């Protein structure tokens, strides 16, 4: 005698799914789970519900920031996503600059752009590696991408002093100018990396078995993508031409010419592919930024206290749009900071997908990693 299993529908009703189902705990100790847990309702192969359980690495960063000065807050904010620290930090620093009403010098904007695009490449490489690993426990592509991140991390260490968590952006600019020999090495790295992207495309994106696994799986329609609040390359893979870099330019993006990668399919394959194409766009942006970089100072003085007020700053991180809502009461510490990272939004779509289409148990890891989620990001 089994009792019928129930699940939550999008609008609050509880519906019965069927008998003979069980809940599978994918995580927190599971090869794919990361620092979270996916509770999968399944009959053995078909999946009826996925519940994302986050919060295993909740550090209360929003609360911590209320006790730190604006500059001190840089360090905890960066710890949200280790892979993508400069993009995350740009959200925080940009919000402060907005509420303090200061404008960084143009050269600082270009240096920021270069660092952020390198960070985006690093982040997308890791996403591609995880996607390949989730589809086959195929460590080859994962280790290639991990190895190919190294030249970029070396460059970032050369420029900022750390492989990640650079703490390099401060309100009012960046902490140092570009060192000698950096630009030459960056150009050589980009030339070499362009050839590596071709290898990824032929070995993995065009791989027939990878296509069989991902094409037509986990389709998010344009309408659903907007209503569920999907973010980043996932949103663009569903056909919404939204990119914060283009729609609300920050740093030097307003002065550079680049295209938005969009796909119409909205399936896992398109999401994986979109990331590879975005890396090409990033290379293009870095090259333009090197060529157009103006001379001048890299940092302006920050006023000690902001005016009371509020601001919402949006930034395109590797995983999608992050926004920082900051309320200031005129003291040297923020009154309230609300950070909405991209993964937090993307997890909702993962929860919703099994309710709109058939997902098999084998699809679950590929589905999850096609969204490139990051628990530390969502937990804060």
């Amino acid at each position: 005698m089994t009792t019928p299993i129930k699940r939550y529908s999008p609008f609050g009703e509880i519906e019965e799914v069927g008998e003979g189902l069980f809940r599978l705990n994918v995580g927190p100790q599971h090869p794919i789970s990361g620092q979270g847990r996916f509770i999968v309702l399944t009959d053995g192969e078909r999946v009826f519900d996925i519940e994302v359980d986050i919060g295993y690495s909740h550090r209360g960063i929003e609360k911590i920031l209320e006790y730190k000065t604006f500059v001190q807050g840089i360090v905890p904010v960066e710890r949200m996503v280790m892979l993508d620290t400069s993009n995350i930090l740009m959200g925080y620093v940009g919000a402060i600059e907005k509420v303090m009403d200061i404008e960084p010098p143009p050269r600082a904007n270009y240096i920021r752009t270069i660092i952020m695009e390198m960070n985006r490449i690093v982040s997308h490489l890791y996403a591609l590696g995880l996607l390949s690993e989730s589809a086959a426990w195929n460590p080859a592509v994962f280790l290639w991408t991990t190895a190919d991140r190294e030249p970029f991390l070396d460059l970032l260490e050369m420029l900022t002093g750390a492989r990640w968590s650079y703490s390099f952006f401060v309100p009012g600019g960046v902490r140092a100018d570009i060192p000698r020999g950096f630009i030459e090495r960056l150009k050589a790295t980009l030339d070499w990396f362009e050839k590596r992207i071709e290898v990824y495309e032929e070995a993995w994106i065009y791989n027939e078995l990878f296509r069989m696994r991902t094409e037509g799986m986990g389709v998010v329609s344009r309408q659903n993508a907007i209503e569920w609040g999907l973010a980043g390359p996932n949103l663009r893979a569903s056909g919404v031409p939204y990119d914060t870099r283009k729609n609300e330019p920050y740093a030097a993006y307003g002065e550079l010419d680049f295209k938005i990668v969009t796909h119409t399919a909205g399936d896992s394959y398109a999401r994986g592919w979109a990331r590879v194409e975005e890396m090409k766009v990033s290379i293009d942006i870095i090259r333009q930024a090197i060529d157009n970089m103006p001379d001048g100072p890299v940092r302006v003085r920050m006023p000690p206290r902001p005016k009371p007020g509020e601001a919402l700053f949006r930034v395109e991180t590797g995983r999608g749009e992050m926004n920082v809502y900051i309320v200031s009461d005129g003291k040297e510490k923020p009154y309230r900071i609300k950070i909405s990272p991209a993964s937090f939004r993307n997890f909702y779509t993962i929860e919703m997908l099994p309710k709109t289409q058939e997902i098999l148990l084998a699809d679950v890891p590929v589905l999850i990693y096609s969204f490139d989620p990051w628990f530390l990001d969502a937990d804060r």
Partner: protein
Amino acid sequence: MNEDILDRIRSLAGEALVEIKSPEDKRIYVKVKPDAVVDVARRLKDELGFDMPISAGGTDYPKKKVIELFWAIWSSTINKVLILKCEVDRDSPSIESLTSVWPGVQKFERETWELLGVDFKGHPRLKPLLLPEDWTEGYPLRKDFDLKPYRAKWGDRI
């Protein structure tokens, strides 16, 4: 800025409107009365095309004895962000959930319920998200949440 959009919002919100401003081109701040939030939200979505939720949360003001809630919504047609706000009573905060209008705010409201103690009526899944399931020590994002016991426990190790 955005005067025509502000006018349309003024007309569709009617008496429920408390405050409206647009300090920069891509941001519109709208503050409404708490009992009209769902109504205004649905009309904002249907008539002005603000369809994509990008953030939601709240701020605690112990002196004013209110919690100010906000929902940030991006419009895919006119490419602007609207920040819909309302104030609820701090002692028994409760408001109608907006998940029926924008499904994507589900997780944000759940987080606000957990960290600020605002009850969202009609929310499909109000259960602990970030904190432990047996958390009884209050609402961490409220301003009167005391960090001293935690500092004593974890802060100073030498």
